[in-house]
């Protein structure tokens, strides 16, 4: 905290940049933009375009027949897996948002209070995050397996957790929450570390209870982290795929939009147009959340 007069900064305009700097900056900006455009935007746009054509994945694209909105119409009318898939994605989103995220936040708050053994808790809760989703599917298979699973052995039941469509979505949600809780916890731990203790002390002096302090002071201060968690939860829920694919290829009660897209495009089927239509619908759904996020961020920056 020195009171030494700082040298006045000159305006940092482009005028200060030499030619070489300009080249460097344009390279640094240009190349990532190019990579993003060629690997993200072009395929995305191509996918949207393909969804209006009937192409089997073989032969020249020029021979593909334009079919207008036919695939979209078929998806919502005669494709039996479509509405279940949308429903399961929304259930997934709700479970992640209303169950897994609050649990993660709670874990973060408890660990942040630095009771004994926090390191151990922190590590064990965070461990699932470093595992791949496919591996998590296998790990939980050991718990959920009908004939050899731990859960059935302990409860003495013979429920087919992964095979019975009444239970398997919930089984998958438990497995995915196991990972999501650790992830959210870590983000909030970082957020909590950044909250100025003086704020909490001030609230305490003013006579606020600990819970009140958390909800009225700490939580609002963590706004940027909240936004990040929100977005991660939304996007992760909408693109959920690997776990259910490992369980049973997203069939029989585990249909999700992402598995249906894969089934139609990647498998032996090659209904490229139809699969692209499903993918476009997915893109539309995630765009809603991305737009909301951008609006929040822009408004924040405008303040």
């Amino acid at each position, binding site marked *: 905290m020195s009171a030494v007069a700082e040298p006045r900064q000159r305006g940092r305009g482009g005028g200060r940049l030499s030619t070489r700097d300009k080249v460097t900056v344009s390279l640094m900006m240009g*190349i990532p933009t190019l990579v993003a455009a060629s690997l993200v935007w072009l395929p995305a746009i191509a996918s949207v375009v393909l969804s209006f054509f009937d192409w089997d994945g073989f032969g020249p694209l020029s021979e593909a027949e334009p079919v207008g909105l036919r695939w979209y119409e078929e998806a919502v009318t005669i494709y039996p897996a479509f509405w279940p898939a949308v429903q399961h994605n929304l259930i997934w989103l709700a479970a992640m948002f209303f169950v897994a995220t609050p649990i993660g936040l709670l874990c973060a708050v408890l660990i942040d209070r630095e009771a004994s053994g926090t390191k151990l808790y922190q590590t064990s809760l965070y461990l699932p995050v470093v595992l791949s989703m496919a591996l998590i599917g296998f790990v939980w298979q050991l718990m959920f397996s009908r004939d050899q699973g731990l859960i059935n052995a302990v409860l003495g039941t013979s429920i087919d957790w992964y095979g019975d469509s009444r239970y398997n979505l919930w089984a998958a949600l438990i497995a995915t929450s196991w990972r999501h809780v650790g992830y959210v916890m870590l983000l909030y731990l970082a957020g909590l570390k950044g909250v100025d203790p003086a704020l909490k002390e001030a609230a305490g002096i003013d006579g606020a209870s600990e819970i009140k302090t958390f909800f009225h002071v700490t939580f609002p201060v963590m706004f940027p982290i909240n936004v990040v968690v929100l977005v991660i939860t939304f996007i992760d829920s909408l693109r959920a795929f690997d776990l259910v694919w490992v369980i049973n*290829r997203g069939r029989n009660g585990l249909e999700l939009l992402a598995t249906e897209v894969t089934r139609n495009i990647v498998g032996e089927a090659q*209904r490229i147009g139809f699969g692209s239509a499903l993918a476009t619908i997915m893109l539309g759904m995630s765009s809603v959340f991305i737009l909301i996020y951008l609006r929040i961020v822009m408004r924040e920056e405008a303040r």
Partner: protein
Amino acid sequence: MSRPQSELEYLARFRTAPISGVSRRAVLAGALSVGAVGLVGCGGSGGGGGSASGEVSFGNNQADEAPLKAIKANVAGFEKAHPDYKIKMNTVAHTTFQENINNYLQGAPDDVFAWFAGYRARFFAEKGMVGDISDVFGETKGIPASLKNACSTADGKQIVMPATYYPWVVQYRKSVWKKHGYEIPKTIDQFTELSKKMQKDGLTPMAFADKDGWEAMGMFDILNLRANGYQFHVDLMSGKEDWSQAKVAKVFDLWKGLLPYHQKDALGRTWQEAAQSLQQGKSGMYYLGTFMAQQFKTGAEQDDLDFFVFPEVDSTIGSGAIEAPTDGFMLSKRPKNEKGAKAFLSYLGSADAQMANVAADPSAIAVNENADPTKYTSLQKRMLEVMKGATDVAQFLDRDSRPDFASTVMGPAIQSFIKNPNDITSMLANVESQRKSIFGS
């Protein structure tokens, strides 16, 4: 607080000592361009190996222990007979291979690859994705005439070298049946009676699994063949028949009548697990391809297996039609080593190669008529009998139909029927609307 100073220092450093600045930027720029080039240059590079080295690449879809041993026996036999060639084998799990076949064929396929006879091979031939092997096929002696059609395109070019096939039959353990004194049923009514008897004896009458969505297709096929005959099966599979008609509903009604005797919770069970329930004597019988024997130990355990063809439903149609999916090998569109690939295919079609194959994996039999049946196990001799007694040979729902129809429509439809057998009409109406969309009629 000290940032401006450091920034000044930093800027000052630029002017006085450009070296660090330059090097840093140069390194960065270099790294970026390398990164970009790296990204561009990420194309798949197929393994080399032209005809000079005599290497033939082979895409094998048999990853399970017994069939893998069988195919390795074939490779070893070929290399012994043709010492100037070397086979480079790429093994991929069966289901994975199947699901990736399109990308595989459009990418860098192996010279020779394993596939199936029937509509499923023809489908790729029509797209110009595979090689013509008419010359090799014509020179290979002993291929049954009845298989020629299943191995050819619509315009009569051969594209598949058939190797082995296996019938789908009702399999059971002799010891279990002897203990309870069961008799082989000849009609569907006797079959139902037998199932009831098994339930009384505390057995699950029919082992059953449909986790991967294809296993139960066999049950639909055989009931359809029994109730409506072979020609109807062919027409229905190739999209020429209406799925919502009464003839198809009748098949599902028949099946619904048998469902109480099926093993419960089939949608979470693999066929291997269902086969084990038969092997452990918990189930009385299992309608499946004879590859089920792979789950039984060779020797006494396999000798205890026996089977019969699915009983008749309609006496005017009888029980002459069976399903016997044929596995074979195909040539890729542009093989790197065509000569070697064709020599390998020719070898795979020979009686010797096929005998070596089925000796290592006795759950199938050789298609080649010159194969010596005296070397067969008792189980294989029974298969041969069944095949000789067949009036018509169907391939299987997912091999007689379009892959997109079988995997995205019929698999889920049959699973939904198993889950809820009371909703046949609306399920079939949905299948019909999707058939119209996919077959475009």
